């Protein structure tokens, strides 16, 4: 705790590095998962190989996966970001396909029968209905990404993990505690923010709880 208070500048730099890695990887992961999920939703037979493949990827320990990526992308943040993108794919693609499949056929038929075009159906019906499920996936993916980014410090990517690894190497418990608190706080804050967004995206659920 003392370390946090006495070195706010250093911690802030590391926090921003951490956020940058997480943000970039989430951005790429979302951009990748949407077309992939749409493809899987359209071509049902792809669901098993795609989701299965991504699931297998998810079981590889993150340390091993990043080491495997280093020869391809170098000993830097890029390798870590690629690993984060690969990890979060399974969560995002699964939530999006499940969410799309969960929309009641009666609702889709009503939309069609009332004369909505394909794009109107997508933007006015499918997107708002799938958004809460997708955002739940983004939230979990963000937490996973924050966790993996912590390991990124081992690979020269910076981030809050640097405090932890430096602390271990130099026996500085204050640094370890500072790093642990910072990462945990970051995860909690991001989780809370995304949870609020999720909540906001489903007015019907919000009212029901009241």
């Amino acid at each position, binding site marked *: 705790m003392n370390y946090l208070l006495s070195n706010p500048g250093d911690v802030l730099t590391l926090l921003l590095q951490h956020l940058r890695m997480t943000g970039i990887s989430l951005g790429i992961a979302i951009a990748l998962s949407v077309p992939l999920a749409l493809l899987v939703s359209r071509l049902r037979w792809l669901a098993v190989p795609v989701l299965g493949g991504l699931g297998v990827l998810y079981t590889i320990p993150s340390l091993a996966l990043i080491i495997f990526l280093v020869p391809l992308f170098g000993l830097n943040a890029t390798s870590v970001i690629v690993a984060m993108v690969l990890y979060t794919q399974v969560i995002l693609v699964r939530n999006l396909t499940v969410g799309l499949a969960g929309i*009641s056929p*009666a*609702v889709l*038929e*009503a*939309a*069609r*029968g*009332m*004369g*909505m*075009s394909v794009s*109107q159906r997508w933007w006015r*019906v499918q997107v*708002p*209905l799938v958004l809460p499920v997708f955002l739940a996936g983004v939230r979990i993916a963000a937490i996973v990404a924050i966790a993996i980014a912590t390991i990124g410090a081992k690979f020269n990517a910076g981030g809050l993990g640097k405090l932890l690894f430096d602390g271990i190497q130099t026996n500085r418990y204050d640094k370890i505690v500072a790093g642990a608190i910072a990462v945990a706080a970051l995860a909690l804050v991001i989780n809370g923010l995304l949870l609020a967004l999720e909540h906001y995206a*489903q*007015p*019907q659920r919000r*009212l*029901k709880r009241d």
Partner: protein
Amino acid sequence: MSNLQFDDASLRFAGGARPAVNRVTCQINSGEIVVILGPSGCGKTTLLKMVNRLYEPTGGSIFLDGVNIRNRSATKLRQQIGYVIQQSGLFPHMTVADNVAVVPRLLGWPKPQIQARTDELLELVKLSPGEFRDRYPAQLSGGQQQRVGIARALAGNPAIMLMDEPFGAIDAITRTALQDEILRLQGQLKKTILFVSHDVEEALRLADRILIMRLGEIVQFDTPFNLLTKPADEFVHTLLGADDMVRQLGLLRVGCAMMALPPNYSNGHNPTLSHLDSLRDALSLILKTGAPALTVLEEGNPVGLLTLDHIRESAVNGR
């Protein structure tokens, strides 16, 4: 005002052993309620969905007001046809008002007009706008949801309405209330309504004419009275339960069975009833009063006479 014409319309699904709809030719007149009745798998829903081009016929044509619907844009066509489905199909993420406003928005109406129309329709289906406008579908009962479904289908002021077993999943008491509602609304609005049902009572209550289907084909298309009294075959006879005389009398109106006033008619002391009452009501009245004949009134004026013989005759013809 809108009429609908099926001209040899057929639909065979890919891989289907027989056509789901086979060479249907018939004419639905403007302002009439036609109930398509038949057992499941008879093609009634398929026939309905061909009208708003959710299914395209593989043979024959369908004309709306004389124009082949194939020559119209599917989305534009659907915006001009009211559509009510069984599970209501309300959009769960939209309020009641937004659900009702879907078609007016698609049609690009100005905002104040949409708002006024939404409130007007909620009033029409007996949901107070102040109370229900901002609710979500999940906060409504099944019957209320279906009322919103009907309001939503009416929103763009379509001349023709397609209703696909709209009350199929609703309890019996609410269903009867909603059927009454349909008849009341129809009295005001005079839409052309095509209504799919597998419920004989519902069909007999609502329909001006009933189109009976089996295995994709029309078996008989006629008024409830003619169907009960002159069923085309054993299938129609069994389907309508034509053997249950008392029930049948409950479904036939006095106006169908009465005789015209004789020229020498003098207003005696006959008990009176309306031409819209059922023959069952008439039978009950005769048994209760012991009168030999009843005078039938239409808007307060005598228009006919009804005796026990007339009632018996209707029942006998039905058998």
